[in-house]
């Protein structure tokens, strides 16, 4: 019955290989790489919030190269149109008909750079493509390549002339990550390897094919969540809904995301079942961007830190199952 033939072992082998390859060029941040791979396995998308120059492009390029996929990049600007992302039908005089010119969203790993610079309409075109995994232009739906991972970035310190993603749209990203500065040793190496972003393709080797990634995604979805772990996760989710300081807790979709991220984290750790550790590890990356602070909204670096502090506090107060 299991036609794909990939079990949890195969999924974790692939996940570790991809993570290792990416870390060859994305130095000093194994956790960020791990969470990006989790998003890949759980069929989710990544929101990177960071100052420019932290290596977001390198991360996305390396990931694309490691899974043998196509990398595409879109620079979001205020005048970017939805069709600039999805593609347009262009009149072709030769064939006397419209031919579809696919937009940059037709890639395996799509870097949506500074997503908060574009208008909400353009943003929602990307977000729609992310969740539907297809693009509809002039009533024709075209499936996006598989696997499909969007790495969107937004600069939390820049407010002027931007359209911060509304809460409901933040929900569409499986994880929100911040890269931060590398530790001194890694940074030194980065500086030594300056200009290495052009050489990503030569430094990273493809370690998987698209089919293997799809099979791994499928195997990941089948990873068991023991009842006790599920109860633990749901306990945390329920607390976000009851918390005084939060105007909006984690939605049902958020809970689903947390659980699928846990599965992927278990796969990355080489297990066929989830542990409370997976929930603990994935709770902040998958949930911090989904809660809305009372009276402040979710945008901005300060709000982000406050939400993280609140959720960390919840983790510290919630008992873990087992003796």
């Amino acid at each position: 019955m299991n036609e794909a033939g990939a079990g949890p072992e195969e999924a974790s082998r692939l996940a570790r290989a991809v993570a290792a390859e990416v870390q060859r060029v994305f130095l000093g941040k194994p956790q960020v790489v791990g969470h990006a791979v989790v998003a890949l396995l759980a069929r989710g998308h990544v929101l990177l919030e960071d100052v420019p120059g932290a290596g977001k492009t390198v991360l996305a390029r390396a990931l694309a190269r490691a899974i043998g996929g196509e990398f595409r990049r879109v620079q979001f600007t205020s005048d970017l149109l939805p069709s600039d992302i999805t593609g347009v039908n262009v009149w072709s005089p030769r064939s006397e008909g419209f031919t579809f010119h696919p937009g940059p969203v037709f890639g395996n790993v799509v870097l949506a750079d500074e997503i908060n610079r574009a208008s909400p309409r353009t943003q929602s075109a990307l977000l729609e493509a992310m969740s539907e995994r297809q693009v509809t232009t002039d009533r024709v739906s075209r499936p996006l390549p598989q696997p499909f991972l969007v790495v969107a970035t937004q600069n939390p310190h820049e407010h002027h002339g931007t359209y911060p993603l509304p809460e409901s749209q933040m929900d569409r990203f499986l994880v929100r990550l911040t890269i931060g500065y590398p530790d001194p040793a890694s940074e030194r190496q980065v500086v030594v390897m300056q200009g290495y972003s052009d050489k990503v393709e030569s430094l990273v080797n493809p370690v998987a094919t698209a089919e293997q990634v799809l099979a791994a995604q499928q195997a990941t979805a089948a990873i068991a969540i023991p009842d006790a772990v599920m109860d633990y996760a749901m306990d945390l989710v329920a607390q976000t809904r009851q918390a005084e300081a939060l105007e909006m807790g984690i939605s049902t979709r958020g809970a689903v995301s947390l659980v699928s991220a846990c599965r992927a984290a278990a796969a990355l750790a080489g297990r066929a079942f989830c542990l409370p550790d997976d929930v603990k590890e994935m709770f902040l990356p998958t949930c911090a961007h989904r809660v809305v602070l009372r009276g402040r909204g979710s945008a901005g670096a300060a709000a982000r830190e406050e939400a993280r502090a609140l959720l960390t506090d919840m983790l510290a107060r919630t008992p873990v199952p087992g003796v």
Partner: protein
Amino acid sequence: MGRLAEFVWRSRFFPRKLSFTREGKVVFLVSVGLGLAAVNTGNNLLYLVFSLSLALIVISGVLSESNLRGLACSPMPGVRPAAGRPATVALTVTSRRPRFPAFSIEAWPLVDGAETEPARFLDLRPGQAREGACRLTFSRRGEFALRGLVLSTTFPFSFFRKSMVLPASGTVLVHPRVHRLRAEDLPPASEGEDEHLPLAGRGQEFFGVRDFHEGDNPRHVLHRRSAGRLQPVVREFEQAGSRAVRIALVNALPPGPGGAERVERAVEKAASLAVHLLEEGRTVGVVSIGGEVSPGSGAAQVARVLDFLAVQPSLEMNPPGVEEPIRAALAADPRAFVAWVRP
């Protein structure tokens, strides 16, 4: 609709309803045939098989009843769905039973004119409360009455569907359909003035040039300039102005057949236009016969405009003076752009 109305009518007198599922009908027919065969032949083993099928049916009926006992459903949260688009509603079902769990529970709000896909729960432990999502789809805009909350189950054998209507009341405001607009969909000009609406999200005035980024519209590439710099450059435009746009909706029935349908199209068009402009960050107001939303911007204004448009009736008025009330209202702010939407 008919079945739904009947269901509601029945629910006043019988708070529970039992109906056969498709499989239940088959099983029932097989049982009847089996009973006839048993009576005709006097074959006791046929009676035995017949008894088994009767027992399955009876147990099914009894258990479906007890499976719903002691369950409660949270009131439906307020939603503002758009016509033709599924809206997701979260419902919490609580089991107040002391001992036995409940299995295979479905819950949905009973709303006039809505196609519903229920929220589903595989099981509910005693005392447990679980949240599930159901989906409502309305075919047209307007205000619809909530008749109750339905709890339903096909446990244990999928032969029967047992449903129970819990009292609930309220209304659901359904927004008009909003279409994504393309440039050619936008109205060309405002009434009587030769000013064009600066639509499509960008200014018309030339602002400068900059380097081409991936994702830029290739139509704006300045080829001559690019050739000179050995790198593509594009035009940049001035940001749109901050003057308000007022959408004038003539919600009067036009003469001829299909008038009501044409008014609906007009309402949708007004809604789409308003949402489009508001998403671009502009200030938008709506004026119709008999009402007005004063100009504003932001997400709250989107809600105000759609709430307003959701309940605009189709008025029967004589053609000549129809637009007079609108013009009177528009006169208050002569500086605003005006976009007329007529059926």
